[in-house]
């Protein structure tokens, strides 16, 4: 069975995406597979690559213009599929990977599923597992037709190790990037508020308990003292107390830090989904019934500001 692993090497999250793909493969059962890497790049190819402890049969490179346009990627991939005919195309996590899986499934007349946690693959069947109902239930799906176009679920955190790909045969796709009449112009503003929450080792994630923009400013300072990135629940962002780049949850960043402190957060499913991959979760809330406590390793019922300020003092005294 041939499996193509599809990743965007130009993405700042390339190594995290690779790590998520590696974890997906670890959790999956796959019979007799041969792996090929399909990698997108712009101008310069990285000299070292995350090979995911695999010995790929080949690395195929696809040059794409900036900014990345999905249409250009799809045309190249259709040509690569026609040549190599992989039974499975495994796309990276996140919106780009989800879009690629959905659209490739349509164009290649196969099946598509997004945000899969794992897969059972044999020569005769493909079963994918995906969290549904706001991540409360795990759904088992049978995919009817190859090629099976599957994107990996976001699980945050960690970066894949790099190694030399010198031993692996590599070649470039010769498919020209198509022009689209409907695309009249494109330009780019670089976003100064780029969040690295998904890669952070420590996160202080706060909810409506911060109470105001001034409250958020106060916890921002505490986060710095704790050496943590600041995250926020959707109500905090909706109140314009915090920037959209700090949003944690199903509509924002999926995080997996070593330590996550969730303070003043009720624990709505949309938020809990964003922090559930954290290695260690501390919940602080003055409501003992808050749902967040069910997801926490350590629970503190108290005023979040007083606890956090005292914790910052402990950390400062120790360093």
């Amino acid at each position, binding site marked *: 069975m041939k499996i193509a692993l599809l990743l965007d090497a130009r993405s*700042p999250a390339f190594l995290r995406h690779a790590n998520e793909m590696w974890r997906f493969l670890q959790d999956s059962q796959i019979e007799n597979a041969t792996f090929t890497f399909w990698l997108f790049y712009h101008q310069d190819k990285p000299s070292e690559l995350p090979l995911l402890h695999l010995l790929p049969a080949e690395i195929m490179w696809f040059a794409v213009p900036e900014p990345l346009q*999905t249409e250009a990627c799809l045309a190249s991939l259709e040509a690569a599929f026609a040549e190599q005919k992989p039974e499975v195309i495994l796309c990276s996590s996140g*919106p780009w990977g*989800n*879009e690629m*899986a*959905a*659209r490739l499934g*349509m164009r290649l007349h196969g*099946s*598509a599923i*997004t945000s899969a946690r794992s897969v059972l693959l044999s020569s005769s069947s493909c*079963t994918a597992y*995906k969290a*549904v*109902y*706001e991540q*409360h*239930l*795990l*759904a*088992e*799906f*049978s995919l*009817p*037709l190859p090629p099976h176009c599957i994107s990996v679920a976001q699980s945050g955190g960690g970066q894949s190790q790099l190694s030399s790909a010198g031993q692996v045969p590599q070649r470039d796709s010769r498919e020209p990037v198509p022009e*689209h*009449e409907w*695309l009249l*112009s*494109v*330009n*780019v503003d*670089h*976003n100064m508020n*780029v969040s690295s929450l998904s890669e952070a080792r*420590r996160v202080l994630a706060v909810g409506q308990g911060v109470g105001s923009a001034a409250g958020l400013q106060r916890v921002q300072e505490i986060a710095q003292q704790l050496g943590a990135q600041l995250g926020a629940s959707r109500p905090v*962002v909706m109140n314009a107390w915090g920037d*959209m780049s700090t949003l944690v949850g199903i*509509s*924002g960043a999926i995080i997996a830090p*070593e*330590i996550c402190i969730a303070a003043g957060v009720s624990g709505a*499913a949309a938020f809990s989904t964003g922090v559930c991959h954290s290695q*260690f979760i501390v*919940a602080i809330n003055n409501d003992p019934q808050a749902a967040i*406590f*069910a*997801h926490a*390793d*350590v629970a*503190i*019922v*108290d005023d979040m500001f007083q*606890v*956090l300020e*005292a*914790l910052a*003092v402990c950390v400062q005294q*120790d360093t």
Partner: protein
Amino acid sequence: MKALLAFKPLSDLSMLSEHDWIPNEQLRLNIDYVRSTLSCFDETAAELLLRAQAADQSIRLEALAFNDNMAESHLKLLLALGFERASRLTSPVCECAFNPLANATILANYLRGGQHSLVVLGMQFGDADDGQTAAMLAELLGWPYLSQVSDFTLSPTPHTIRVSRMAETEVQHFTIALPAVLAVGNSTQAAALRIPTLKQKLAASRASIEVVTHELCDIEQINSPVLKNLSPINKQRKTQWLEGKTPQDKALELYDVYLRGRMNS
């Protein structure tokens, strides 16, 4: 120019108790009685359409709600805010759960003959959709598609639209020719849907919601992933409660017992 907002309301699953999480033989949860909500992306999509209409009165807005017994309240809200037409799709209902291709096929069939130039959806068309419905709809129609859209306005040139989308490290601005499908994500410009006045609400309460009952696709003919089983995901942890007398006591215990080692490793 006609623009369609298509959405699938979300059930408020926080209302479910422990024993409500057991699926029936058809692998469905009994959530018909649960309050339904617009997703944050649907709210943003509707708000962006209203802003586009405010800037260009020639846009005629239509809303189509999928598979929800309680969709009427959302549709009345949209009518109150300035949507000209609101429809509710009643059939087929349950078969479309976790079936973005069926959703997209129904939408594509609905759009054929409707002379719409712009279709706008949220990045989540119902639970666990991940933008698939919008992407598949664009593929079925052969229309341009942009995802993670954060803003759009009609440009002065006829039949063109200027669209902004948030990528990982940049905001991309496209000018594209219509027709097009847009999937709306997070937006700082339109994070929430505006609230109608009492007068607008009263006017909308008298408006009628169209019910679309036609069979718009044969679900059995669609080669979508087939749901075979549902099992619970246990996310609960063995929570340790810190019981110090003061916040300072609790913080000290938290740091000494649980965090120091982790922070210094």
